[in-house]
């Protein structure tokens, strides 16, 4: 199976073979890793299991070493207002994103997807969609392969790390991958997936990485919640036939360029943005003792 160096190539290959994008990614990896499809599925299944456990565990009461995170998922889910403005599916997605992301902050075991800082977004979208529509596990696994393929292209052509490209690269990439895979889960075309990917990246173009006290907590945990909603919005728009005016690979390139232009203070160094506020400095002093 051929390499793919852009989302366009992924879509073209899927269309040529009349198969979903996940199929192209699986074939590529069988060849690259010299593994059978069953072996790949088995390994991915383990990752999916860890994601599920992180959701279950993160929903419990706990506090991160800094005291900044913990208990938010349950508080949101049990509130009488949650789900009033948003659909039950979105409510579930937000709950999962908060759970997993807080569990990460509390030194729980998670799957970097594609990074630890953005680890709640993909599982939030895939679990909430799969649960709501009672999709079989194999479909959810395929969606993970699909997302991984999207992440590979973004990593290759731009960046998936906040230190390199800001939050747009980190939570943005996770949301783009989740949106693209959600379209496949819902029976959309590869072309629709590409538009969903583009839209999700566009929604957060320019978003900076400004972790308070340098920790993966504030605003990261809540940005995982908004990242999940971002992905669902992008997927639903694309499924309804709405297209990104800018082709997805150009959006990825633009994201890369914005990341390059972004000053260092806004790329995970905790020197700008929210991290430089008066309150953030106080938090930092309390946590780090200086």
């Amino acid at each position, binding site marked *: 199976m051929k390499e793919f160096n852009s989302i366009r190539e992924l879509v073209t290959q899927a269309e040529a073979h009349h198969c979903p994008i996940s199929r192209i990614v699986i074939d590529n990896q069988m060849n690259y890793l010299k593994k059978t499809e069953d072996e790949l599925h088995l390994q991915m299944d383990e990752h999916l299991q860890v994601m599920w456990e992180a959701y279950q565990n993160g929903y419990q009461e706990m506090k991160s070493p800094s005291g900044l995170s913990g208990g938010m998922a349950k508080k949101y889910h049990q509130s009488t207002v949650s789900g009033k403005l948003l659909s039950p599916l979105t409510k579930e997605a937000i709950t999962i994103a908060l759970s997993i992301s807080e569990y990460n902050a509390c030194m729980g075991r998670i799957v970097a997807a594609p990074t630890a800082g953005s680890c709640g977004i993909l599982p939030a979208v895939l679990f909430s969609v799969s649960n709501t529509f009672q999709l079989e596990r194999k479909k959810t696994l395929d969606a993970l392969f699909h997302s991984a393929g999207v992440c590979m292209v973004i990593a*290759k052509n731009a960046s998936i790390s906040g230190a390199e490209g800001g939050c747009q690269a980190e939570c943005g990439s996770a949301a783009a991958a989740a949106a693209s895979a959600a379209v496949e889960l819902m029976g959309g075309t590869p072309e629709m997936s590409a538009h969903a990917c583009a839209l999700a990246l566009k929604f957060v173009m320019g978003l900076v990485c400004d972790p308070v006290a*340098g920790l993966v907590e504030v605003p990261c945990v809540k940005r995982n919640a908004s990242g999940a909603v971002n992905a669902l919005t992008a997927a639903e728009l694309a499924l309804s036939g709405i297209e990104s005016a800018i082709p997805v690979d150009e959006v990825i390139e633009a994201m890369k360029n914005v990341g390059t232009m972004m000053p260092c203070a806004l790329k995970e160094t905790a020197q700008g943005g929210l991290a430089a506020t008066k309150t953030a400095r106080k938090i930092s002093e309390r946590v780090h003792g200086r």
Partner: protein
Amino acid sequence: MNIFDMIGPIMVGSSSSHTAGAARAGYVARMLLGEEPVKAVVTLSGSFAQTYQGHGTDRAIIGGILGFSPSDLRIRNSFEEAKRNHLSYTFQMEELENTAPNTAKIELQGVNGAVISTIISSVGGGVVQVVRINDADVKFSAEYPTTVVFNDDKPGIVAKVSEYFASHHINIAFMRLFRREEGQEAIMVIESDQKVGKEILESLRQSEHINKVIAIEPF
């Protein structure tokens, strides 16, 4: 590109560089010591020194020194685990010059008296780079099966080592030689595509002018 680098690794949070990479740094230092460590002096530098409490960098390094993988939940309680395993440790903060932002100096003493001093950087995504062993500047990631040979700086040793590898059909992916001064201890780092069997390691250990042979398995 490997798909499981994108959806993965499985790791204990909160940060791939400050937690997973830190655990891996501790683990690689343990492997380089080559025996059960009983004492550790850890110097945190750069961003490691700035934010270690919140990320659990200190606990992750101790966990790694105890042999835990970056996905092992015991990392969270590694200080208690250290007590149980009779490992004493101290932390200090100091800027190590000319190193990457997330760097630790890890000095270990083993149960049979072996000592090693290493400087290891966490370079992102849970990947580390060993940049110093004892007095020698080195550079390797231990992402492949890695064999580290400590030998006298004499002619013919590289030939002998590569001959052992060839005769056991082990393909060498990368091989680098390091030393501080001519005639002093030299370090050979061999990253191979296949796992290096006990047989080769033992034959190497028996060889003249080879003082220590370490094998590091990737997780």
